[in-house]
Structure formats: structure tokens, C-alpha cells
């Protein structure tokens, strides 16, 4: 893959051949950023970069860009998540310039959940671009030094560009072609949906390797620890594109309630250990939803600590 192009610590870790670790924080539903700064401080030494979600599940929150700035000022390497649901190409490009002006060097391009899931189901949605076209847009701005209009950008946003992939979405047989399409659009790193069905993920990775896609993009495997059997059941039944095998539910059920969260952490650690051995897995995206304090433990027990030092 190409030489380092941005000031992203994540990019440097990946390009120096280390398995990367990223995590994720959701901004608060308030104008007080203290909470997200605390979350960042909690995990800062155990991750290379930290994603900041963009009004996730379509619930209005402090904006991803401002939260990224707060974390950047604390010395973290934030990954600006951008959904195309709420902003048109003018606003998206404007926010990319704004983010770059604060030295934010990573962006993750997403569609965004439909607004009917959130707190403003009556809202208009935008979808001027789709997530793949946002990837193209960031690459175009960075590499061609132009806006989509063709106008020149004197100082372009120098961003490491990521996209999401869901190996478990339907239809399964287009999941590898879909990754190829995202790479063709310009994605440099991929963070996957939470992996619980390891066998299916391995099958997807086989397809990825068969086409040599793992040599064209860094794939970070998504890990979310289960806090309880209730959470596992909820994810299995209610979250589209989430594949939670019955065996996992049985395993959690077999443990007394008080110890289920501990078992969830152990399962996450075991998953990472198994996934580490898969050719083409370039790192891990540990999403401990509202449970960020557990990230250090997962990272340490998985043998991913200490994090490599790079010139971030």
C-alpha cells in the first residue's frame, strides 16, 4: 500500500505494519463536552485513534466535529464519523475543511441510520451523496485539491479515509464485491460491523483475500463486548445486519447474571485472539457502547498493549 500521506496516527500505525486499535465514543446530548473528554482520557493510552459518532441512531447530540476537536486538543487522534443523512455536499465539504483546520486527520464515511429510528422521525433527510460518494469526495478534495465543483482548494483537507463494511449484511454474496467497490471509491481503511459470527467473518475474509482486497485496504475487525444475555438477545433480534449466533447466547445464559458482563469481556478477548491470526485483519475497532472503561482491559488481555509509538 502507498506511503503515509496524512498526519494520522492510525495511518502511521497501520503502515508501519502493526495491528491497529481504535475505539469509539458517542458525544453527549448536551453542550457540555466534559463527558466525552473523560471517555477519551480513559482510553487514550490503549488506542491509536478514537472514532466519534455522528448523531448515531439519528438522535441529536453534540456534533461529531466539535467533539473531535475536544479530543484532538487532549492529544488524541480522532476519527471524524460523517453521515450523509443530515448534510448536503456543501455542508460536508465545509465540515471537512473545518475538521482539517483543527488537524483532524481521519474520517469515516457512513450513510447513517434512517431518521425514523431517532428523536426526530419527522425530519427531512438529505442523502445528497451516499457513503461511497462521500469517500470519493474526500479523496478528490485531498488528492486533486479541488471541490466537487472543480474549484481549486489551496490547502486541501489531508485526511486518511475510511468506510464501514458489514460482512453480515444481506445479500451476503455481494459483501465482497461491495468492499471492492468501496476500495475503488477510495477507502483506505475499513471498520467492520461487530463480529460475533466468526465463522461467517472468516468466510468473508476468504473472499476478500481471494481478490487480494486485503492488500488494498486496512481492515479493522469490529468488536463489541456483550454486557448481558439480554443485550445479546436484543442485538440478535432487533438490530438489522447483526449476526449473533445462538451458541453465544447459550454461553452467556450458562453464566450467573452477575458474571455475564465479565464473560462478555472474555468472549471479546477470545474473538480478538482468534481474529488476530486471520490474514488480512489489520487491527481492531473496539466499540464498548457506554462501557468505554472496559476498553483498556480488553486491549491488555488481548495482547495489544502497549500501543506502538509513532510520530503522530
Amino acid at each position, binding site marked *: 500500500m502507498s506511503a503515509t500521506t496524512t498526519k494520522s496516527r492510525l495511518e502511521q500505525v497501520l503502515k508501519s505494519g502493526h495491528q491497529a486499535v481504535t475505539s469509539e465514543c458517542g458525544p453527549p446530548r448536551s453542550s457540555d463536552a466534559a463527558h466525552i473528554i473523560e471517555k477519551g482520557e480513559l482510553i487514550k493510552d490503549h488506542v491509536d485513534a478514537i472514532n466519534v459518532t455522528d448523531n448515531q441512531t439519528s438522535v441529536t447530540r453534540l456534533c461529531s466535529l466539535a467533539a473531535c476537536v475536544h479530543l484532538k486538543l487532549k492529544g488524541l487522534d480522532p476519527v471524524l464519523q460523517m453521515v450523509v443523512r443530515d448534510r448536503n455536499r456543501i455542508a460536508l465539504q465545509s465540515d471537512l475543511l473545518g475538521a482539517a483546520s483543527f488537524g483532524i486527520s481521519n474520517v469515516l464515511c457512513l450513510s447513517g441510520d434512517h431518521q425514523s429510528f431517532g428523536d426526530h422521525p419527522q425530519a427531512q433527510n438529505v442523502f445528497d451523496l451516499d457513503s461511497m460518494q462521500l469517500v470519493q*469526495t474526500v479523496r478528490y478534495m485531498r488528492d486533486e485539491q479541488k471541490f466537487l465543483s472543480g474549484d481549486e482548494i489551496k490547502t486541501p483537507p489531508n485526511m486518511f479515509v475510511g468506510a*464501514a463494511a458489514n460482512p453480515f*449484511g444481506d*445479500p451476503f454474496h455481494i459483501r465482497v464485491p461491495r468492499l471492492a467497490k468501496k476500495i475503488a471509491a477510495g477507502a483506505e481503511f475499513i471498520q467492520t460491523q461487530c463480529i460475533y459470527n466468526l465463522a461467517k467473518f472468516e468466510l468473508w475474509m476468504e473472499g476478500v483475500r481471494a481478490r487480494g482486497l486485503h492488500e488494498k485496504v486496512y481492515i479493522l475487525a469490529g468488536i463489541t463486548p456483550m454486557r448481558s444475555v439480554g443485550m445479546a438477545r436484543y442485538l440478535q433480534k432487533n438490530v438489522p*445486519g447483526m449476526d449473533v449466533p445462538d451458541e453465544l447466547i447459550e454461553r452467556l445464559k450458562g453464566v450467573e447474571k452477575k458474571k455475564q458482563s465479565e464473560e462478555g469481556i472474555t468472549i471479546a478477548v477470545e474473538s480478538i485472539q482468534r481474529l488476530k491470526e486471520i490474514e488480512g485483519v489489520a487491527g481492531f475497532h473496539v466499540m464498548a457502547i457506554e462501557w468505554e472503561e472496559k476498553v483498556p482491559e480488553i486491549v491488555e488481555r488481548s495482547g495489544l498493549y502497549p500501543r506502538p509509538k509513532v510520530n503522530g
Partner: protein
Amino acid sequence: MIVGEQKPFEEVWNQVKHHKRLLVFGCNTCVAVCHQGGNKEAGVLASLLRMRATQDEVDIEIIDSGIERQCEHEFFERTEELVAGAEAVLSLACGIGVQFMAGKYPDTPIYPALNTTFLGDVPETGVFTEKCQACGDCVLGATGGVCPVSRCAKRVLNGPCGGSNKGMCEISKDTECAWQLVVERLERLGKLDDYEKVQPIKDWSKDRSGGPRSFRLEDFS
């Protein structure tokens, strides 16, 4: 065709109850197919309004009629007198017909009896589904004849998004995932390789975003 649905009766009644001589006026083409706005439905709605007027002891004369299309001048010829004699018109046309009448009869209040809902088809008797958003720049040639602009809740041009689940959309278990349909159709046509072509960023200036659209046939002007 254009599909509409009748507004809740209370809303209709509240719009017109203060008038003394009301014409309830059907439009017998698109919205007649979905049994919401045709001349027959105008008759039924007029009866319901008369009953309500009697019940509420409101003095209002209600006449019902209709024409083939409320969006072209020539169809109005037979009913000119009827419209001219009405104090107000309750139109069962789509929003186009209502506006056409408002423009044609500038001194007469025209009220909508329908909500214009979508451009759709009739896949089976009594079922109407949205199929087009008139985006002004058709992509059906690249998507196997399935429109992602009107049939995908996020109108993604490079789908499916992560919310596609067993062929259905994340917004409802009754809504098909348009991109599942695109993929199936491309496969059937032996064109699955086309799936990997990144669809370019769309020019939405040809859509509603670019302002009201029109065109003129030069030969006719």
C-alpha cells in the same frame, strides 16, 4: 400514475363548512384508479358532507360533479357554469389539479380533498406502491430497472446500506430493500459485474432542488 389518498373527513369538513354553496369536484383519471378522487368518490364524499351538514344544522348547498382531468383547460368546457356558480370548490384531484383550478378560477377558493401521496403503480388490485420521484435524471438503466431514488429510504445510489435485512429495509419489515432487488435483477440479467461500477454523484439540480421544472414543445408554441 399519480396516487392520492383522501384526507381525514374532519379535516375536509373543517375546510369547507363555512361556505354556502360548495362544488365537490372529482378528477376521473389517475386518482380515480386508486378509488380516492374520481367522480364516483366525489359523489360519495358529497353525500357524507350533506349528512354532516344536516347533523350539525349547517346551511350549505352541496353539488357534486367531475371531469376527466383537472389539469388541462379543454376538459373544463362542459362544467364552466357549474364551477362559476359555486362559492367554493372541494377538488378531489391531486395537487396539480387543485392548483390548475386555483389558477383558472382566481376568485374561487379551491380546497384539496386528497393528500397527493406518490407516483406509483398497481401491482395487484387495491395495492398502490411508489415507483418514481421524478428526479429528472433517470438511473434505471444502471440499476436493473429498480429505482433506488424512490424505493430506497436513503436513496443511496451505491447500495445496499447496512440496514438491509433478509431482503427488507431497516425502516419496516413490510418495505422491500430496493438494493436487494437491484442485485437480484442484475444477477438475473447476467450483469452482476455492473454492481461494482461506482454510481457517480447525482446532479440533483434536475430534481426539486433546482426549482420548479417545466418544458415547452417548440413546435406547439
